[in-house]
């Protein structure tokens, strides 16, 4: 397919990889891919096998499903338990365990929970079920948030009174700052998420090289993109010139997508928000502005969730900060598999544990990691 196949050219990949090895010259470099889609591509195309052993790739907190806190899943379940509510969600959220249950378990108990492809589909469901309250579980980063904003504006414009959003949206730049402020986390460069950046642009990341001296490359999702992104990062690191480079120029513009940014600002405002593994990060989440409170389920029906501790040996939190890998987890591949996931990093199709499980238990990079 056009604009996909040519970025999978294996010859070009090999050349990029040898250039990376040549420039890195044995220097130990740690890079973090922030986006779950990158984690999946890196695993699928065996990118770790193409890189020299001195370059380490870690996964970060870039899968919206994985970073959703237990208490937030509990809250979604509490709404689904209410009479008359149809809870709608992206499919990936269904199996994520909260403290004691998951949406898919609740569905099997007879709760009305429906998987939708988009917020627009949830709004359609509200229109065709006027006697019900339809709640869309708003999970996602900057890429997805404008599409939810549009659904709220559409509901308002069309006078729909039974469509609500439970906003658990999260923002990437504050999470990156939180990671960099964490003493346990060591990264030399970030492979920045291509589609989040499509919305927020290049500028949003400038503090990272300026304040923290960490290299940055906004990167596309095909193997040529990822290797070229890594080459840009390695050059910045080896030559001591950290900055924000844009490998994915065919899609990401300097100022992002201003129209989408305006829609986000119209409907949402920043709020403190809890991330699995990272804790509460100031102004890293979005809540619905008062102006649109008619569409905010938390304003219509108040639910207080008690924080409860759950005891599993899942280390997703540490994996999301890049301080551990799935191979450090005693449950990985044994008690925890994609069929029977214990933690969200195995549930989500873009989770790090799922990527490790699906592609290359036996790959060279993973063997080395084990040693």
């Amino acid at each position, binding site marked *: *397919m*056009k*604009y*996909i196949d*040519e*970025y999978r050219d294996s010859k*070009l990949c090999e*050349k*990029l990889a040898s*250039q990376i090895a040549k420039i890195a010259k044995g220097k130990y470099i740690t890079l973090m891919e922030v*986006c*779950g*889609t990158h984690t999946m591509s890196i695993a699928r195309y065996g990118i770790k096998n193409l890189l020299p052993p001195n370059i380490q790739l870690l996964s970060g907190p*870039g*899968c*919206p*499903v994985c970073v959703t806190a237990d208490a937030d899943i509990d809250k979604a379940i509490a709404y689904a338990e209410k009479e008359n509510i149809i809870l709608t969600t*992206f499919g*990936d959220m269904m199996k994520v365990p909260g403290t004691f249950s998951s949406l898919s378990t609740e569905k099997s108990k007879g709760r009305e929970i429906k998987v939708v*492809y*988009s*917020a*627009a*589909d949830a709004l359609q469901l509200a229109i065709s079920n006027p006697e019900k309250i339809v709640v869309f579980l708003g*999970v*996602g*980063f900057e*890429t*997805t948030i*404008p*599409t939810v904003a*549009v659904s709220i504006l559409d509901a308002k414009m069309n006078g729909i009174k039974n469509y609500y959003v439970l906003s658990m949206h999260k923002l990437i730049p504050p999470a990156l700052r939180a990671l960099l402020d964490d003493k346990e986390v060591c990264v030399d460069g970030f492979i920045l*998420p*291509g*589609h*989040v950046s*499509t*919305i927020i642009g290049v500028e949003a990341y400038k503090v990272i090289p300026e304040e923290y001296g960490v290299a940055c490359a906004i990167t596309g999702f095909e193997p*040529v993109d990822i290797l*070229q992104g890594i080459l840009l990062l390695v050059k910045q690191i080896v030559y001591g010139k950290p900055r924000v480079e844009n490998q994915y*120029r*065919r*899609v*990401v*513009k300097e100022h992002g*997508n201003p*129209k*989408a940014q305006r*829609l986000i600002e119209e409907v949402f405002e920043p709020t403190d928000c809890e991330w699995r593994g990272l804790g509460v990060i100031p102004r890293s989440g979005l809540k619905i502005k008062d102006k649109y409170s008619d569409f905010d389920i938390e304003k219509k029906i108040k639910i207080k969730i008690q924080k409860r501790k759950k005891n599993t040996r899942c280390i997703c939190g540490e994996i999301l900060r890049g301080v551990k890998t799935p191979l450090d987890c005693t449950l990985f591949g044994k008690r925890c598999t994609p069929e029977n996931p214990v933690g969200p990093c195995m549930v*989500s199709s*873009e989770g790090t544990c799922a990527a490790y499980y699906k592609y290359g238990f036996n790959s060279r990079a993973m063997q080395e990691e084990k040693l």
Partner: protein
Amino acid sequence: MCLGIPVKIVEKKGSVGIGEIGGVKREVDLRLVNNVKVGDYVILHAGFAIQVLDEKEAEEMLSLLREVFERL
């Protein structure tokens, strides 16, 4: 979850487009982008085009890479 794929816009009526990928057609909401023309490629995410793909930029990047590596 931020997956976005390049689709070709083959029809357009106001702010609703029909996108085609690998022979499959589907509706694309064009309200997040400006000036999309039939024949353009857009990045599709959750039913919306989130950006128009810059074809010139896409080709330049590849030919630049190929050129650099041919000289090596």
